């Protein structure tokens, strides 16, 4: 018969080992020694009590918790006051930002790779030297029109409250993350904007 496994030894010291397996112990000095060692360690652990704090400690303990709880938000809330009041603004603003990012990425992709077939049939081809062509392209784009209309409905104060406003350093960081081709495209767009 095989030796008892670790799990079976635990079952044995807890009195849960099936009798068929427990019968092995009588014939096996190796398993007996292991059980003896584990039982001895368990007995030593059992004998340990920890010092009982004074009644005064418990009063202070409860008092400290009471104080912390009095200042804590209601159970289950996020603890952020704007999270409850601004949830719909947050959703709307997130949607607008996601659409803006998507549209931006789409525009960069389509303008950077002229050989790529246009995904929106109504989009006019963009001319880098002609600023009006940028507007022409975006004006004809239904997705961009949707982004614009949604963006118009978001108040600036809401976007600031929802932490969506640009912070110092964000633009620099974003520019550093661009590939060289994306930077060229950004430069072209900026030049087109300044010529307007």
């Amino acid at each position, binding site marked *: 018969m095989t030796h008892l496994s*670790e*799990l079976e*030894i*635990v*079952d044995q010291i807890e009195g849960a080992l099936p009798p068929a397996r427990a019968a092995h112990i009588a014939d096996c000095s190796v398993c007996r020694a292991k059980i003896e*060692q*584990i039982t*001895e*360690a*368990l007995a*030593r*652990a*059992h*004998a*340990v*009590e*920890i*010092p009982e*704090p004074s009644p005064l*400690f*418990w009063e202070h*303990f*409860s008092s*400290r*918790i*009471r104080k*912390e*709880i*009095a200042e*804590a*938000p*209601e*159970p*289950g809330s996020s*603890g952020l006051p704007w999270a409850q009041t601004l949830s719909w603004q947050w959703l709307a603003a997130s949607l607008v930002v996601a659409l803006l990012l998507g549209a931006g990425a789409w525009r960069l992709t389509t303008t950077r790779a002229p050989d790529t077939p246009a995904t929106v049939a109504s989009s006019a081809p963009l001319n880098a030297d002609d600023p009006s062509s940028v507007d022409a392209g975006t004006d004809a784009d239904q997705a961009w029109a949707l982004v614009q209309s949604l963006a118009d409905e978001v108040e600036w104060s809401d976007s600031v409250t929802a932490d969506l406003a640009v912070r110092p350093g964000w633009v620099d960081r974003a520019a550093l993350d661009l590939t060289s081709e994306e930077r060229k495209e950004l430069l072209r767009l900026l030049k087109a904007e300044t010529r307007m």
Partner: protein
Amino acid sequence: MGRVSPDWTIRVGPIEGEAQQASSDRWAVLDDAQLVRACVDGHREAFGAIVERHRRQVYQLCYRYVGTHEDAADLAQDTFVRAFKGLRGFKGQSSIATWLYRIAVNVCLNRLALKTPRPEPLLADDRPDLQAVRPDAALLRAERAAEVRAAIQQLPRKQRATLILRVYHELPHEEIAAILGSSVGATKANLFHALANLKKLLR
């Protein structure tokens, strides 16, 4: 003869301690599930009764885990504050004691991940000088207990948690497995290794 006004006033009504006592008496009669419901419904003072009921066990769990009164008090307090904040997440699938143990173990594990624990001194100055003082049974018992506590703190984290929850809090393996996010088999194996390591450390 003019009237003389005293420089003190009489306030009618319960003083702060009495009011607090009345409030805690009101909640003390409710069971844990009712107290949780009351807290979630906005009666945050009901949580005081939960603290009163379970603070000792939670403190002891933390003490056995970290080995010092100061750390155990901090961790136990943190456990209750986190429990209050997450009270809405308590679905009553386990007892609130088990739920609190789960939070306490997580709090202890997180604390240990952040800092090196201060183990209870095994052979420090507070150990009785056996040559100067004739060791009586109580002293020897205290010394041996300190040795075991120090040895428990040297166990790997999951072995330590399993040993504490099983031996001192007598939780079933299934509940320990749920608390530690492991299987019953792993819990039993952890207990075996915890005791085997304890035996080696106490040689």
